[in-house]
């Protein structure tokens, strides 16, 4: 084996081992790497009322209610299998709207999620308004497809 | 810009600033080193410099 060959195999074997190690570590820490849980995760795993968590999903259509001139809001976060009711006091991001993604941070007492912070999550589609309208009109609009 | 002008213009401003800093510092760095090299070559002397240059070429031919 020439020195070049030897160095090449050392580098390749090293990279393969590194990749395996990284994959194992990332799989082991999966629960800490996710930024939020879905309503289904919460229904399945169950969370204590004192644990601060984030939930993410879609704001259910027609569920957004505003009180005290928009200072306090209630809405339902859904992943189309399970849904969680969220109450929140504070200002919402500009992109917050029904049918759009949302991530809320707070505590869940088993029935209501009390959020201390609400962030908007948008999808990966970018288009002008006219194109969006045309797609909706022609029935090729894929609503809520990206909801997780 | 729909009420977002501050965010949009600062983004483009940051980009232009970082790109400009990278260009200017790179060019100034090369100039400073080239000045240093020619000063050094003058001091070391032309005969020695020629020997050094051929030595450098050999060193880079390993590949």
């Amino acid at each position: 084996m020439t020195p070049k060959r030897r160095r090449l195999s050392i580098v390749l074997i090293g990279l393969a081992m590194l990749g395996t190690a990284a994959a194992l570590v990332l799989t082991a820490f999966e629960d800490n790497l996710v930024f939020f849980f879905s309503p289904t995760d919460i229904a399945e795993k169950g969370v204590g009322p004192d644990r601060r968590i984030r939930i993410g999903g879609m704001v259910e259509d027609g569920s957004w209610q505003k009180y005290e001139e928009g200072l306090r809001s209630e809405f339902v976060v859904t992943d189309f299998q399970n849904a969680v009711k969220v109450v929140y006091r504070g200002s919402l991001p500009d992109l917050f709207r029904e049918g759009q993604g949302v991530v809320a941070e707070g505590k869940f007492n088993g029935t209501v999620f009390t959020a201390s912070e609400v962030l908007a999550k948008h999808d990966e589609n970018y288009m002008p308004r006219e194109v969006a309208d045309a797609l909706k009109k022609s029935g090729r609009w894929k609503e809520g497809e990206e909801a997780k | 810009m729909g009420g977002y002008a501050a965010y949009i213009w600062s983004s483009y401003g940051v980009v232009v600033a970082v790109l400009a800093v990278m260009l200017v510092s790179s060019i100034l760095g090369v100039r400073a080193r080239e000045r240093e090299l020619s000063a050094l070559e003058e001091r070391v002397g032309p005969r020695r410099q020629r020997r050094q240059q051929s030595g450098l070429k050999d060193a880079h031919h390993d590949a």
Partner: protein
Amino acid sequence: MNWFHWLANPARFMRFAARLQPWIMALGLLTGAAGLYFGLFASPADYQQGETVRIMYVHVPSAWMAMFIYVVMAAAAGSFLIWKHPLADVAAQAAAPVGAGFTLMALITGALWGQPMWGTWWVWDARLTSVLILFFLYLGYIALVNAFDDPERGSKAGAILLLVGVVNIPIIKFSVDWWNTLHQPASVARMDGPSVDPSMLLPLLLMAGAFKLYFLYLLIVRMRGELTARRIRLLRLSDIA
């Protein structure tokens, strides 16, 4: 591979690069001007994000460059360690500050886009965190290479760090698919084609092209500087000897 070996000679490479340089500059300026024109003026607002979509035309190409330059450096590190290509080490060291610069641009423009749209400058989700790690990898590489008295040892240590850090690149790319993140999934490099309207894809790709050319130009300038620094080092050594 013949032309590759032909170019592996540093003096020849620099002569070749110097001839290319004005063309790269001209093409880069042209592409950049077109990108800015379409990005800032001649493209529509997004149906959801409004005018802030214009931040995408600098944010996304910066993030692409951040990853692209790292991959180039890691490939150079590999060829330096395995085949001892001196020019590969020169290229990696010349590219590092530029990579760090593009990563910084991606992070800052991302914050400026996140605040109005998501409602936050920063979150510790898998995508944002792994890009921050990339930024520190660049800084760590620059520090490590310069931490040794013997530049050859610095180059080797740096090259090993680059190869170890390459594991972060697929993590950045696929973080948005593997885990729940606040950052949305890929819009352009995806299996079923881009999910960006052509009118917005145009400025995005123009800016990406301009950034790539800008990097190439800077790389040539900085490689010339790095090669000059090495000649200074050699002359100094022979001066002492």
